[in-house]
C-alpha cells in the first residue's frame, strides 16, 4: 500500500462526506474498496475486497433505483460544515492516536481519516443510504489498516469481516426499504419517535 494510494482512498472518503447525491456517495465507497483491492498486492485479499465492493455497490445502486426520493434529502449541515467536522475529527485522531504499528505512518493517518469521515458521514447525513455509505467508508478505513499491517491481517478475519459487512449492509438495505415504504422517504430524521 503506497502512501499515494492510501491518501487517494482517504480523499475519496472526504469527497463522499461532502456530496449529497446518493449515487455519487455509493460510487465513491465502491471505488474506495476497489482501489484497496488493487493496492493489496495479494490475490486473496484483493478478491475478497473486490467481491465485497462489487456486491455492495450492486446492492446499493439497485436500492437507489428502487427508492427514488420525491425531494432531495438535504443534510442538516452544509457541505462546508460536514467537511470541517470531518477534517477536524481526522486531525484530532491523528494528534491523539500514537503509532499503531502499521507499515507506514501515512497508512495509519489515512486509515484514521477514513474512519473519521465514515463516522461523520453517518452522523451528519439524513438519508439512510448515506448512513450505510458512511458505515462502509468506516469499514474501508479498517480494511486499509488491515492491508497496511506487517504481514497483513488474518485472511479468515478479513473474509469474516467482509461477509459480515455484506450481511449487515443487506439487512440495512432491507430496513431502508421498509422505512421508505412506511414513511415515503428514507429520511432518518423521521425515525425519532422513541424518546423517554
Amino acid at each position: 500500500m503506497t502512501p499515494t494510494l492510501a491518501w487517494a482512498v482517504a480523499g475519496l472518503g472526504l469527497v463522499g462526506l461532502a456530496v449529497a447525491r446518493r449515487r455519487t456517495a455509493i460510487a465513491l465507497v465502491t471505488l474506495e474498496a476497489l482501489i484497496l483491492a488493487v493496492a493489496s498486492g495479494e490475490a486473496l485479499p484483493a478478491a475478497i475486497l473486490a467481491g465485497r465492493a462489487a456486491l455492495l455497490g450492486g446492492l446499493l445502486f439497485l436500492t437507489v433505483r428502487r427508492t427514488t426520493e420525491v425531494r432531495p434529502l438535504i443534510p442538516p449541515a452544509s457541505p462546508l460544515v460536514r467537511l470541517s467536522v470531518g477534517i477536524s475529527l481526522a486531525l484530532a485522531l491523528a494528534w491523539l492516536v500514537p503509532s499503531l504499528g502499521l507499515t507506514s505512518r501515512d497508512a495509519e493517518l489515512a486509515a484514521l481519516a477514513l474512519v473519521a469521515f465514515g463516522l461523520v458521514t453517518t452522523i451528519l447525513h439524513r438519508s439512510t443510504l448515506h448512513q450505510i455509505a458512511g458505515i462502509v467508508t468506516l469499514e474501508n478505513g479498517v480494511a486499509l489498516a488491515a492491508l497496511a499491517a506487517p504481514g497483513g491481517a488474518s485472511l479468515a478475519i478479513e473474509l469474516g469481516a467482509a461477509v459480515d459487512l455484506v450481511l449487515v449492509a443487506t439487512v440495512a438495505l432491507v430496513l431502508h426499504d421498509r422505512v421508505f415504504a412506511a414513511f415515503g422517504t428514507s429520511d432518518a430524521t423521521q425515525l425519532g419517535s422513541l424518546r423517554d
Partner: protein
Amino acid sequence: MTSLALLLPLLPVLGALIVLVAPETQALAIGIAVAAVTTCVATVVAVSALLDPGRVDVAGPVLLDLPGAVMTGVAALVGLAAAIASPGYARDRPRRRAYVVKLLAFWAVLLALPLADNIGVAWVLVEASTAVSALLVAFGGTPRALEAAWKYLVLTTIGLALALLGIVIVSAGLGDSVGLAALDWDSLATTTRLLDHDAALVAYVLIIGGLAAKVGWAPAHNWLPDAHSQAPAPASALLSAVLLPEVLLVAWRTEVAFAPAIGGHAARAPFLIFGLASLVVAVPFLARAMPWKRLLAYSSLEHMGVVAIGIGAGSRLALIGAALHVVSHAVIKCVAFLAAIPLLAVQPDADSHPPGGIGRTGPRLGALLAVCLIALAGLPPSPLFASELLIAWGAVQGGQPWVAAALLFALALAFIGLAGSAIDIVAARTELSDPRPALAVVGPLAGVAAALAVALVVAAAYLPDSGVADAIVAALA
C-alpha cells in the same frame, strides 16, 4: 461429550432450514422441537464442562471452558423458553415462518459465541448477531419497530467497526507471526505483551469501547431501550438475557488477555467507568412509569452496569458475583420479558403506555409481574441480592470501597424505582398518565431501600473476615 459443542450452533441452523421448507402452519411447532433437542445437547455439554472444569480446545477456534459452559447453558435455556413462548406471540400473526427462521438463526449465533476461542471469530459472531437480531427487532413492522431496528443496527455496527480496528492493530503489532491462532484468547495473553504499550492501549480502548456499544453500556446505550421494547417478547428475552452477557463475556476475555500488556488497573478501569455510568443513566428511568418492556430494558442497562462493576472490581469474589449475577439476571429477565405476552393480551397498549392495575384484573399475572420486578430490584431472597452483595464485597476486598459505596447507593435508588413501579403496575386503580412515581410510596420504599443498603454494607464489611467467604468461594469455584 465436549465435541457435542460443535453441534450446538448447527442444530438451530438445521431447524431453520427445515422450517423454510415445511408448511407455515408447522413452523412454530418445529421451532419448539428443534429448541428441545438443542437444549438437551447444550445441557449435556454444559453439565459435562461444569463437572470437569477446565479449558478444552474442542476443535479449531472452538473452546469449552467454565464461563463458556455457563453461558451456553443459559443461552440454551432462554432459547428453549423463547421458542415455547413464541406461539403466544406469533400464532395469529402473518410471516410466522420468517419469524421462526430468524429466531433460530439468532439463537444459533448465541450458542456459538460463548464457544469462540478467538477474538476475531468472536467479533465475526457478534457482528452476525447484530444483522440477524436487527431483523427480529423490526419484525413487528411498525414505524417504531423500524426506528428501533435502524438505531440498533447503525450504532452497534459503528461500535463493532471500531472494535475491528482494535483487532487489526493487535494483528499489526504481532507482525509476520500473525495468523488466526495468534488471536486465540490464550495466545493473546502472551502476544499482547509483544505490542508497543501505547498501541496495545489504543487497541484495547477501541475493542472495549466498540463492545460497549453492543453491550449497551452508557453512554452508548441509546439503542437498547428502543430495541428491547420493540422486538417480539421472545427475541427481547434472548437480547437481554443472553446477547448482552455474552458480549460482556467477550469483553471480559479481552480484559484478561490485555491485562498483562497494559496493566490490570488500566484494563479494569473502562469496566468501572462504563458500569457506573450505566447505573447513573439507568436509575432515574427505573423510577418513571413507562411501558413494561421499556422498563425492563432500562433494568438491563442497570444490571449490565452491575456486572461491569463486578469485572472492574477485579477480585475473585467480585468475579464470582458477576457470574452469579449474569445467570440470575438471565433467568429473571427471561421470565419478565415473556410475561409481556400475557400482559399485552390483557392490556394491548402496554407496549406503548405504562401498564397499571394488572393485579385487579388478573391476580396471577399481576403477581408474576410483581415478583419479576421485586426480584430484579434485588430484594431477598432474589439471587440478585446475593450476587450484588458478592460484587460489593469483592470491590471492598479489592481495595475499592468507593466503588462499593456508589454501587450500593445506586442499587438502593434502583430498588425504590422498581418497587414503586411494581406497586403501580399491580395495584394502581387506573392506568398511569402521570410519568412520576406516586410520592406516597417513595417514603416507605426509601426506608426499605436504606435498610437494604445498610444490610449490604454491614455484610460487605463483616463477611470478608468471617470465614463464610472462603466457604462460598469454595462452593462456587
